[in-house]
C-alpha cells in the first residue's frame, strides 16, 4: 500500500437538524490509490453522507478529509467535483440532454474544445460498450435502465478523473444487467487505474466487486478490510451482514452442479 492514501478521512463527523441526527460519527478511513472500496450499510447508516463528504456535496462538521493529499476544505468545491467522477443512484442523467451531451458535460464545464469532447464521448461509449452510432444522440428516456447506468459511468469518467465515487450505482437494475455492469466496471477500474469508492446495501455485491469492504452502522465505521478480514470480525452486525452471502453461497453450491455448461 502506497504511503499517501488517495482519500483519507480522519475523525470525520457530520450531523443534521442542529445535531439531532448524527449521520457520520468520528469516522477514520483511508482509500489507497488503485483500490476498489465498497462501503456497506443499511439505510440511515451514514454511508451516503460519508461518500458525499469526499467531494463536498456535503460539508463535514468535524475532522479532516484529504483528497490526493489536499485538505478538501481548502479546495474550491466546484473544481473538486469536476476532478472526481460521480455515479448517481439511478443514473441521474439530465433528461433534456442527449447521451453525448450528458457524457460530455464535465469536459464542457472544464472548457475542453468541442472536437476533443466529441472524440472523448466516442471513446467512452466504446469503453462502456454502447454502440456510438446508435446511442450517441438518444435522450435518456429512450434508454433502458442498464444503458442509462452505463451512460452514468461514462459521464463520471469523461474528464479522466483518478477517483470515482459511486452511490448505489447498480441498485435499481435487474440481476443479470447488474452482474454484467458490475463486471464491466470492475474491468474499467483495473484497466484505467481508478480509485473507486462504491456505496451499497448489498453485501454480496460488495464482496464480489471490491478489494476491501467497510461496514457502516448508525454513523459509525464498524469494520473494514478484505473479505477474509471481515469474516474474522467478532462484531455481531458484521456477522449478520455476512450470514446472507454465506448461506446463499452454500445453497447455490449445493444446487448447481460444478460441471455445468458454464
Amino acid at each position: 500500500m502506497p504511503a499517501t492514501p488517495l482519500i483519507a478521512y480522519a475523525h470525520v463527523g457530520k450531523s443534521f437538524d442542529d445535531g439531532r441526527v448524527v449521520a457520520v460519527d468520528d469516522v477514520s478511513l483511508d482509500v489507497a490509490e488503485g483500490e476498489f472500496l465498497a462501503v456497506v450499510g443499511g439505510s440511515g447508516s451514514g454511508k451516503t453522507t460519508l461518500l458525499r463528504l469526499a467531494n463536498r456535496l456535503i460539508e463535514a462538521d468535524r475532522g479532516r478529509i484529504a483528497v490526493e493529499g489536499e485538505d478538501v476544505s481548502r479546495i474550491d468545491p466546484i473544481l473538486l467535483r469536476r476532478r472526481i467522477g460521480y455515479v448517481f443512484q439511478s443514473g441521474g442523467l439530465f433528461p433534456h440532454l442527449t447521451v453525448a451531451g450528458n457524457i460530455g458535460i464535465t469536459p464542457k464545464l472544464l472548457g475542453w474544445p468541442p472536437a476533443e469532447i466529441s472524440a472523448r464521448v466516442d471513446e467512452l461509449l466504446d469503453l462502456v460498450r454502447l454502440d456510438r452510432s446508435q446511442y450517441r444522440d438518444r435522450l435518456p428516456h429512450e434508454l433502458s435502465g442498464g444503458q442509462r447506468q452505463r451512460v452514468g459511468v461514462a459521464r463520471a469518467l469523461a474528464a479522466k478523473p483518478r477517483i470515482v465515487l459511486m452511490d448505489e450505482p447498480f441498485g435499481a437494475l435487474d440481476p443479470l444487467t447488474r452482474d454484467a455492469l458490475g463486471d464491466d466496471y470492475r474491468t474499467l477500474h483495473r484497466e484505467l487505474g481508478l480509485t473507486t469508492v462504491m456505496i451499497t446495501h448489498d453485501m454480496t455485491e460488495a464482496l464480489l466487486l471490491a478489494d476491501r469492504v467497510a461496514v457502516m452502522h448508525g454513523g459509525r465505521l464498524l469494520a473494514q478490510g478484505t473479505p477474509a478480514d471481515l469474516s474474522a470480525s467478532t462484531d455481531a452486525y458484521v456477522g449478520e451482514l455476512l450470514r446472507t452471502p454465506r448461506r446463499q453461497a452454500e445453497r447455490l453450491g449445493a444446487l448447481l452442479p460444478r460441471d455445468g455448461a458454464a
Partner: protein
Amino acid sequence: MSPSADPRWSEAFSHLPDYLGSHVRVSVSALALGLLISLPLAIVARNRPVLRTALLGLASIVQTVPGLALLALFYPLLLALAAVTAAWLGFSFSAFGFLPAVLALALYSMLPVLRNTITGLSGVDPAVLEAAQGVGMTPQQSLTMVELPLALPVMMAGIRTAAVWVIGTATLSTPIGQTSLGNYIFAGLQTQNWVFVLFGCFAAAVLALVVDQLLALIENGLRNRSSIRTALGGLGIAALIAATLVPAIARPHARYVVGAKTFTEQYVLSALIAQRLQAAELSATIRAGLGSNVIFDALASGDIDVYVDYSGTLWANQFHHTDIRPRAELLSELKTTLAKQNITLFGELGFENAYALVIPRKRADELGIHSVADLASHAATMSIAGDYEFFSRPEWAGIQKAYGLTFRAQRQMQPDFMYAAVASGEVDVIAGYTSDGLIAKYDLVALADDRHAIPPYDAIVLLSPKRRDDEAFEAALRPLLGRIDIAEMREANLRASGNDASSSPDAVARWLWEKIGIR
C-alpha cells in the same frame, strides 16, 4: 343587404391595419416588459418562500382589479409622475395612450408568468439538481444549463396564458388613448354599430387564438424537444409581429389628433372636425372613446390637439365649481381659466347638450308634469336612471336640493339603453341629454328646469396649448362655430345611433356638413 355590400364592413376593414398594428404593438411591448420583470423575480423568489408568497399574492391582487380600472389608474399616476420629472429632472413624457397601456398590461401579464416559472423551476427532479452539482456545475450553470431548460415547457404555458390575457385586455386600452381593436368595440357600442362591435370582438379573438396556437406550437416543441416545431412557432410569431408593424411604420404620421369621448355625439363631431381638417389639407387622425377624465389632460399635455367639451362639464368636473352662473358669464370665466393653462376656448358650436330629466310625453300629459318642479310630488313613487357618472355629479345634488326630489330608486345604465328603458316604462324618469336624437325617436319630453339647477352645457371647441396661433388649423375649424343648432345635432345623433350603412360617424358627419355648410 348582403354583408359584402354594406359599407360598414369595408370601413371596418379600412381601420384594420391601424387598429390591429397598434393592438399587436401594445400587446407585444406589454408582454415583453412583463417577462422582463417577472422572469428574474420568479428566479430570485423560487428558493425564498416569503418573497415567493408575497409576489404571488401581489400578482393575484393585481389580477382581481378589473382591467378597465387598472388601465384607467395608470393614467393619473403617470401624469403625476410626468409632472414630477418635469419639475425635478427637466423632462416630461406622455402619460397618454401607449405608456399607461403597456405598464398596466405588463402588470396584468405577471401572475401566470410568475406562477408557472416558479412551479416549473420547483418541479425539477431533486436528483437531477444533485447531479448538476455532482458533475461540477456552479449554481449559475445549474440554473441556465439544467433548471431553466427543464422548466421551459411549464414557463411557456404561463407565457401563453399571459399572452391571451394581454391581447384580450388590450381592447380596454382605448379609453386611455391607446388605439387598439377595442376602438371597434367602443365606437360600435356607442353608435350602435353592431358590425363594428362584432368585427372588433372577432378580430381580437382571432388574434388571441392565432398567438395562442403559435405559442402552443413552441411549447409543444420544447416539451418534445422538437426544434422544428419550436422554430416554426417562433417564425410564426415573428411573422405576425412584422406583418402588423410594417403598415404602421409605413403609414404617414398624421399631424393633428382629434379627441372624442365615449358617446355618439362625440364620434360624429370628431369625424366632422377631422373631415374639415382634411378638406383644408391638414392630415388628421381621431382618438375616439377617451374617458372624460383622460381627455382634458390629454389636450392640456398636447397628446390631442382638439376636442369638443361642454361648458357645464368643465365648470363642475374640471374646475370643481358648485355655483351655477348665467350662460355668458360662465363661458367667459371658463375662457379665462383655460387661458391660464394655455388652452384655447375656440368657440361654441351653437347647441347645448345639457342633462335634462326626461319622461315619456304621454306620461307627462297624463300626470300634468311639464317641469322638474311638477315632478317633485310624484318622485317618491318613481324610479330614475342615469349614466354612470350622473348620480355622483354636482348637478344631481343641485337638482335634488333645488326641487326637493327624492326618488324611490335610482339605477345606472349604459346611456344608449336609457331612452328605451324609460319609453317602455322600465324606469319612470331618466337623466338624458338634450341633444340626444332618441328623445324625438321615442316621443319623450325634457322637463323644464325653471330654477336653473342645471348649468348650461354649451358645446365648445378646445384647442391644445401647442396649437396656439396655428392659423391654418383655426381657419379650418372656424366654419363650424355657431353653426350647429340643437335640432340638427339631435337629428345627426339619431342618424348615428341607427344600425344601418348610413349611420357611421363619418357618413353622419358628411350629412351634417352638407346641412350646415351650405348656409
